[in-house]
């Protein structure tokens, strides 16, 4: 089963959290996470069905740009807010 690793800043806890999810794409995995743990993570990552601009999502160490990105059975998804400003 794929896993999602969520930084504490988005998990609402004190430490980075890794949870097992189901799904064959990043979007499905986020939907599964929302059903199991509440919509906070999905809402902080997506907007109008797309990835938000300043949130980075990686699958197995590679940045992905689409919720349709396909997962392997043992993929690790990492969600990481961007670091940028002026």
């Amino acid at each position, binding site marked *: 089963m794929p896993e999602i690793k969520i930084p504490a800043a988005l998990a609402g806890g004190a430490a980075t959290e890794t949870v097992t999810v189901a799904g064959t794409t990043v979007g499905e995995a986020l939907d599964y996470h929302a059903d199991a743990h509440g919509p906070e993570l999905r809402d902080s990552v997506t907007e109008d069905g797309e990835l938000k601009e300043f*949130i980075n999502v990686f699958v197995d160490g590679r940045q992905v740009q689409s919720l349709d990105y396909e997962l392997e059975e043992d993929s690790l998804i990492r969600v990481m807010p961007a670091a940028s400003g*002026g």
Partner: protein
Amino acid sequence: MIRFGRSEYDRIIKHAYRGEEAEICGILGGTHEAEQSIVTSVRQAENVAEMPQMRYYIDPEEQLELTEELEANGEEVVGFYHSHPAGPTKPSETDAARATWPGRSYVIVAMDGYPFVGSWRWQNEDGFEQEIVAIE
């Protein structure tokens, strides 16, 4: 409050000096708590923004690499730092528009005079909340 070791504090100021006209940036590792974060490491990152005189942006893959490095060291992301080569001594509108890490510290090194180091925590809809910067 955000606490720096003396050497970590000095490192971000030296980094800001080396940036000259361009903004510099990096990731602060350590322990994070709502009341007090402690910075135990400074990881410099490349500023890949298109206009580095006015913006900073850490390449996502470098950010991932540096984050995994500090996690492997038993640390977590305490926040980020960047410089304002010509001020101001507070977050800019762009900083607020792009802030994404709830509860984390955004440290600014303002260089429009002798260096000023300030820190603000991003509190989502409440915006930036200034915190005390302390040195061990």
